[in-house]
């Protein structure tokens, strides 16, 4: 599907979908027959990204930073080291950089040249992150992009865009929502959305969380 089509766009039977199914199947068959890939390893690679990595990892990191100022200090100094020091935590690759939202500055992450994304803490990127509209507009019109997500920052907030043009990766630490003082790390992690860690959303408020749980 074209990168700028709405993601819900469905293909006519017999168009790109079936063509791609056939072409991918053919290439996988060739690579398997020639002994280059093991289909069982391919299945496992898919299972990893569908079940083992995802934004729950980043949410735990953010929640820990909210409750533990010393951890937050280390996270901002060297995110790779700090994340890998979390007990019981799977390692992340180098070179992760954590950036903190404050009342003065809101951080947004983009990759204008391809789709670089901190997938070892957030999982694979959503379609919108990889889309031409996001990649083109975020560096020139971040307020417009935030508005596409229904986000309006308080007047006077500076916006800082991080274009991921190298192998460094960025994780936004959003501000802790008001009214969550004294919450446990687990409770706090449930408020931390994927989009808030890209800087294109805000964490859920306690009320939003309650309303979702009731549904």
């Amino acid at each position, binding site marked *: 599907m074209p990168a700028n089509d709405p993601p819900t766009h469905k293909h006519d039977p017999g168009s790109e979908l079936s063509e791609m199914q056939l072409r991918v199947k053919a290439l996988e068959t060739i690579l398997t027959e020639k002994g*280059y890939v093991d289909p069982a390893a391919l299945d496992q690679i898919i299972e990893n990204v569908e079940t083992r990595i995802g934004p729950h990892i980043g949410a735990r990191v953010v929640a820990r930073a909210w409750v533990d100022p010393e951890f937050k200090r280390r996270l901002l100094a060297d995110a790779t080291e700090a994340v890998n020091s979390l007990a019981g935590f799977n390692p992340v690759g180098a070179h992760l950089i954590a950036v903190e939202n404050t009342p003065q500055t809101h951080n947004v992450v983009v990759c204008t040249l391809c789709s670089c994304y901190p997938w070892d803490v957030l999982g*694979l990127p959503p379609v919108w992150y990889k889309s031409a509209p996001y990649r083109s507009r975020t560096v020139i019109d971040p307020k417009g992009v935030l508005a596409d997500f229904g986000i309006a920052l308080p007047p006077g907030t500076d916006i800082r865009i991080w274009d991921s043009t190298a192998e460094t990766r960025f994780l936004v630490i959003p501000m802790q929502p008001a009214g969550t003082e004294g919450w446990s790390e687990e409770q706090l992690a449930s408020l931390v959305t994927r989009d808030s860690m890209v800087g294109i959303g805000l964490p859920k408020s306690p009320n939003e969380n309650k309303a979702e749980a009731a549904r």
Partner: protein
Amino acid sequence: MTNSIHDMGGMHGFGPVVPEPNEPVFHEDWEKRVYALQRAMGTPGLWTIDGGRASLENLLPLAYLASSYYKRWFLGLERRVVAHGLVGDDEISASRSLRPGIRLNRKMTLGDAMKRPLRGNFERPAPGPARFKAGDQVRTRNIHPPTHTRLPRYARGKLGTVEAVRGCHVFPDSAALGSGDNPQWLYTVLFAGRELWGEEADPSIKVSIEAFEPYLSRA
């Protein structure tokens, strides 16, 4: 290529960003297979991550724009396995293997795949001291190499400030050509929105790029 369609920062006309509530990890089964094939075929080390990116950037602009993310990955992978002599054009046309494969140094086994995927480390020992430090004023070079680069067009020839030194890393412009790591110092360089987008731009916006030392000159 450098000035190709992939370098999208600042372009107009692509319309709004459309978020998808409760988006699945993959939308089609073939996307999963492309993702897995891409990872598995990266294991033998025949091409670098930058060589992979360059193969996508070399797609014709119309093909690039008309293809979804995973279709681009597929088209790039198909090109690369042929370009590296792993698969023949005749085999792609026949949709099956016509001769035995060549020997690979490494192959992703099920055991490798069981391990949690980890991003590679692109930091390398520094061949010399860093030329810039945090706080230095720099101007990005106005370069237009016909080959792969990670200096976006919107940030060329612009005045910025070094905000942080990020260590010494594989230089994509060299690695994409198969010319080795050629490690270079990497900096976060911060630009005022008005430096990039002109006097009319929103003064509350700042943009940083991750810039390799060869992209920078002292201002």
